[in-house]
């Protein structure tokens, strides 16, 4: 009696177990499908966003390359075409403003709701951008210089005086820019000289780099030559006067050296003189 009913109970329990297990697996399957459906939807959304971004890039690129086609515009989603048009114009303007800054000229910025004007003067030498200098003016009642970062050895006050009689701002900016460019050019030549020609010693140079005294070593007699470079015209990056001093008063090549030093940038002139075996 007990055995029969025990078997009955066990088999009944087994049946129940199987039923529960199959119900659980059935419940898992729908949630797996749901999971996959959610993943599909997320990927589709990601794809749409990427496509929208890439299409916008294409529009902006076309605006920059001026392949702007009116037909193309109509095909676009009219809901967004106004945003796209603005974005395209923004890109073009940014490009043009960048070009203005890069090609030189002066960078003007209005400040203080139009009451002020900032000007940036960029300098460069041999294709390399060097320092930028800034001036801030009050616009009214008359153009007045308020602040600047021009070094004190540049004759700014003098230039302002000289330009006072004239009405436009270039009367000041053009000569100032020439002085600043020449100054950074001379400084740069000195830097390059020190880097490229360690055998040449810089005996003296002033902050304005308008007077440089160098010491050359001559190859044969182990003599030294002192070379003075005078940049009397500070708006130029080449010297106006070159003179030599040597124990051996006979320097046969000195007229040629003078010509080289007067006509080519300092570091280049020295490279020439060294390659010709004139100096060490």
């Amino acid at each position: 009696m007990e055995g029969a009913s025990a078997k009955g109970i066990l088999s009944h329990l087994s049946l129940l177990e199987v039923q529960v297990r199959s119900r659980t697996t059935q419940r898992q399957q729908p949630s797996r499908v749901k999971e996959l459906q959610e993943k599909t939807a997320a990927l589709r959304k990601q794809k749409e966003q990427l496509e929208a971004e890439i299409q916008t890039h294409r529009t902006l690129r076309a605006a920059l390359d001026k392949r702007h086609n009116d037909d193309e515009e109509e095909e676009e989603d009219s809901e967004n075409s106004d945003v796209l048009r603005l974005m395209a114009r923004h890109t073009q303007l940014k490009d043009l403003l960048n070009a203005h800054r890069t090609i030189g000229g002066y960078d003007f910025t209005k400040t203080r709701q139009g009451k002020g004007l900032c000007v940036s003067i960029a300098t460069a030498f041999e294709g390399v951008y060097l320092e930028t200098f800034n001036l801030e003016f009050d616009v009214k009642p008359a153009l007045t210089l308020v602040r600047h970062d021009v070094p004190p050895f540049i004759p700014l006050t003098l230039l302002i005086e000289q330009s006072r009689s004239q009405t436009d701002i270039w009367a000041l900016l053009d000569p100032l820019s020439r002085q600043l460019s020449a100054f950074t050019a001379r400084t740069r030549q000195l830097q390059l000289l020190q880097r490229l020609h360690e055998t040449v010693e810089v005996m003296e140079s002033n902050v304005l780099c308008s007077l440089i005294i160098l010491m050359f070593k001559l190859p044969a007699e182990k003599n030294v030559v002192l070379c003075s470079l005078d940049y009397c015209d500070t708006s130029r990056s080449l010297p106006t006067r070159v003179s030599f001093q040597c124990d051996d008063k006979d320097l046969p090549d000195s007229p040629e050296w003078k010509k080289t030093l007067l006509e080519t940038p300092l570091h280049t002139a020295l490279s020439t003189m060294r390659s010709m075996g004139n100096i060490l």
Partner: protein
Amino acid sequence: MMEKMSEENIEEVLEAQIEQLQAEVEDLQQQQQDNHKDISFNLRGHMQDAMSYICGQKHGAEKEKVLSRLKEEVEEMEEDLKLQTRMNGISLKSCTKTLKKSEKKLVQQLCVSGVCSDLVFQMEFLLSAVKKDEQLKKTISDLNVVIDASDLQPFSSFLSG
């Protein structure tokens, strides 16, 4: 039994779709990467907001805000351009192309055309910016200049011919 089979089918179909979508997304992401290398489109601020709006990441209600902020910025830039043009006396049309961009170096080709006084000119050059010891060194090279004018004599020393 029948139910189980169709569910398996659904799963298979979905998994196949997912695989395809993943491949398409990867492809698009690669295009996006290439686009991002073009530094002309280093989108920031209001431009970035506008881009996010277009990609559907923002809601319709935001459109007015995005549009008005961007419009304001564009108007400021138009004023700025007018100022530069007036003060420098040069009217420009330009185009920038990025040629190479790495962590330390950026090379761009600029093609600038414009008018200065009565002179029509075109020039192109390479602008390289190299990061060295925390300093940015900018250099110009490969300059080509073409001028359209009746008397080219004063400019002959730097014209390309």
